C-alpha cells in the first residue's frame, strides 16, 4: 500500500491537531514540518518525533518528494503557499479561510484543478459526529424539505488563541480584512451552505464590539466580536450568529424542515429531533419533554459507547476529513468537501465583510 508523504507548513496551534490525526492513519506519514520561525517548527517536530523540520518551504518542497501539504499558516499566505505546493506536485489541505477573498479563492481552486491535483479546506465540523448524524436523518427524510437554518458559533476570547489576539495589535488576525470573523465564520457558514442551494444568496450582516468602552488605543479597537447575519436563498433562509460574549461558549445548529426540527449541539455532540406533540391536549406537552429527554439520553449513551471503543477524539471531525481527503487522492474517491461549496462560502464571506468592515479587496 502506498503511504502518502505529508508535510505541514505553519506549526502553530492547529498544526498539533493535524499531526496527531495524520499519525493515526496507516496510509500516510508526516515526514517534515516547516515554519518561518524555526523554533516553532523544531518544537512540533521534536514533540511528535518527526525527523525533518525547515524554516523555508521552498527548501522543504525541493528536498522531500511530498504527496500532500497541509497549509496551517495565517490566511494571507495560503494562496502563494498552496500554489507553491501544487507546483511541487502536491495535493493541498488548506486551513480555513482558504484565501483572503472570493477572487483569490476561485483562483486557487482553479489552479489546483488545472494541475490535476486535489484540494480541501479545514472545515472539520462538517465531519463531526452531529453533522454526520444530521446528514443521515436528512437522507432518511426525517427533516422533510429544509426551510430555515440557524447556525450559532460561539467564540472564547479568553481562550489561549483569543488571549493572543487581544494581547498584541501585531497579531495577524488584526490584518485580515474581516479580522476576527474572517478567521472563524467558515464554521458558522458551512452549516448554512449545506442546505442552501443558491450560488449568490441575499446576505445582510451587522456587527459591533461588545466591550466598546474599553480602549486599547490601537487597531484592536476596530475588531468587532459580535456578528449577526441573515441569508436568504430561493427556498431556504438562515440566521448566522457569531458571539464572543455569550457564556457558555457553544456551537449549535438548528435546522427547520417541513416535517421536523433538528437540534445539534457540537459541544455535547448531541442531536435531537422535534416532531411536535404526538398526543392531544396537555398530555401532548407533557410527553414532548420526556421525548426530548429520551433523545438526549440516547445521544449521550451513543457517545459513551464511542468513548468506550476509543472513537471519541477531540478532533474526530478533522480525522475523518483527512481520511476522506487521502482516500480521494489514493483511490480517486470524491472530494470530502466540494470546491463549489468552498467557493460559495468565500462569496458569502465577502458580502459579510464588505457590510461590516468595508469592501474586501485584499
Amino acid at each position: 500500500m502506498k503511504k502518502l508523504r505529508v508535510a505541514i507548513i505553519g506549526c502553530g496551534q492547529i498544526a498539533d491537531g493535524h499531526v496527531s490525526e495524520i499519525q493515526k492513519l496507516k496510509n500516510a506519514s508526516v515526514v517534515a514540518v516547516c515554519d518561518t520561525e524555526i523554533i516553532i517548527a523544531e518544537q512540533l517536530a521534536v514533540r511528535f518525533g518527526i525527523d525533518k523540520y525547515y524554516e523555508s518551504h521552498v527548501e522543504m518542497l525541493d528536498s522531500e518528494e511530498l504527496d500532500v501539504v497541509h497549509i496551517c499558516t495565517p490566511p494571507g499566505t495560503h494562496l502563494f503557499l498552496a500554489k507553491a505546493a501544487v507546483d511541487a506536485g502536491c495535493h493541498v489541505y488548506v486551513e480555513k479561510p482558504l484565501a483572503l477573498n472570493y477572487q483569490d479563492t476561485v483562483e486557487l481552486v482553479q489552479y489546483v484543478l488545472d494541475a490535476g491535483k486535489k484540494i480541501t479546506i479545514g472545515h472539520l465540523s462538517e465531519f463531526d459526529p452531529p453533522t454526520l448524524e444530521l446528514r443521515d436523518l436528512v437522507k432518511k427524510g426525517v427533516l422533510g424539505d429544509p426551510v430555515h437554518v440557524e447556525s450559532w458559533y460561539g467564540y472564547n476570547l479568553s481562550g489561549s488563541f483569543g488571549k493572543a489576539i487581544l494581547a498584541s495589535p501585531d497579531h495577524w488576525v488584526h490584518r485580515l480584512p474581516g479580522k476576527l470573523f474572517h478567521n472563524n465564520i467558515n464554521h458558522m457558514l458551512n452549516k448554512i451552505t449545506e442546505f442552501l442551494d443558491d450560488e449568490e444568496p441575499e446576505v445582510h450582516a451587522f456587527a459591533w464590539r461588545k466591550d466598546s468602552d474599553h480602549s486599547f488605543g490601537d487597531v484592536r479597537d476596530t475588531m468587532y466580536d459580535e456578528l449577526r447575519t441573515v441569508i436568504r436563498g430561493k427556498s431556504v433562509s438562515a440566521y448566522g450568529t457569531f458571539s464572543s460574549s455569550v457564556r457558555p461558549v457553544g456551537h449549535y445548529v438548528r435546522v427547520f424542515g417541513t416535517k421536523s426540527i433538528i437540534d445539534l449541539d457540537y459541544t455535547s455532540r448531541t442531536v435531537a429531533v422535534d416532531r411536535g406533540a404526538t398526543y392531544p391536549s396537555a398530555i401532548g406537552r407533557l410527553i414532548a419533554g420526556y421525548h426530548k429527554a429520551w433523545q438526549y439520553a440516547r445521544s449521550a449513551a451513543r457517545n459513551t459507547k464511542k468513548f468506550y471503543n476509543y472513537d471519541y477524539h477531540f478532533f474526530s471531525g478533522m480525522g475523518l476529513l483527512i481520511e476522506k481527503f487521502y482516500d480521494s487522492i489514493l483511490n480517486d474517491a470524491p472530494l470530502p468537501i466540494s470546491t463549489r461549496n468552498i467557493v460559495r462560502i468565500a462569496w458569502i464571506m465577502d458580502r459579510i465583510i464588505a457590510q461590516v468592515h468595508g469592501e474586501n479587496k485584499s
Partner: protein
Amino acid sequence: MKVLVTGANGFLGSSLVRALLERTGYQVRCLVRPGCNLGKLDVLIGNHPGRIELSYGALNNYQTCLEAVKNIAIVFHLASAKSGAPAEMFHGSSVATKCLLEAVRNLAPTAKLVHCSSFSVYGVADLKKGETVDENTPLERHPEKRDTYAFSKWHQERLVREYCQKHGIPTVIMRPGVIYGPGGTPISTRVGLNLFGLFLFIGGRNMLPLTYLDNCADAFVTAALNSQFSGEGYNVVDDDPITAKEYLRLYRRDVKKVRSIPIPYFVMWLISIACEKYYARSKGQLPDIFTRYKTASMWKPQRFSNKKLKDLGWTMNTPTETGLNINFQSLKES
C-alpha cells in the same frame, strides 16, 4: 545606570523591581505588554517617583526589544509563557528570547544578562531517589517528555547559553525552584494535583525546593551586582526546606480545609503505566497527563542544593516559617 526587567509586572518581576529600587540606585525600565494590568508596578511607581520607566510592547517584536535595551547595563530576563498551547508557549518564551538576545547583541553587547530559567531544566528522572540536585546535575535529555512548560524553559535556557557563548554576552542563569509568596500559586504541583474537586496528595515526605518570592528576587539582584556570577547556572532555593506533607498541613491549618487522597509514589507509578497504556490504545483519546517520566520528574524524592549561590554571597533574608506565614495570611485574606 539603567537596568531592564522583562516580565516586570509578573509574579517574580514586580518583586524584583522592588528589590532593585530598594537595594540599588538603578533606574529600572520595565517592559510590559500594551493594555496589560500593571498590578503591583503601579504602587512601586507611586512610591519611587522617577525611578521606573515603562516600555510598552511585545517581546517577540524585534523593534520593541531594540527600544527596550537602549542604554541598558543589565538585562533581567524574566518573561516567559506559563500556559497555553505549545506553539504559543514557545513563542512567548524562546522566540521572544531570541528577539531579545538579538537586540542585546546589536545594541547593548556589553550588558550583563541575568536569565530566569527553572529547576525543570534538570534531568531529574534519571537520578536515584534521594539524590541531591545541584548545578552539576545533568540537564534534561528528553525535555519533550515533560510538560510543555518544562520543555519551553529548557529550550529557552539552551538558546541563552548557546547564543551568549557564541556572541560573548556576559550571562548568569538563575534556576529558581518553586517560588511562593503572595499572588503566587497556593499549592505547588510538587505537593499534589487538584482533580475534579479532589486533591491528590502525591508529594508525601518529599522535600520541596521552595524559594520565597523576596529571597528569590534578592538572589537575582545579588547575581547582577556580584561580578563573580558569570556564565553559569545557579540554583535558587531557600536554606530551610520543608516537606510536601508539612506544607499541606500548614496550609490546612492557616488557610482552609482541603479534602485530599494520599497517593504514594509507587501507586502514582502504577497509575502512570495505566495512563500510558490507555493513551497508546485509545490513540490519544485523553491527554497523556501522567506518564512514568513525568511522574519521576515531578514526584521522585530529591534533595536540593543552594551552596553555589551562598558561596557567592547570597543570604536568605526571609526564613521559610516567616515566608509561609505571609503567604498563607495573604491566601486567607484573598
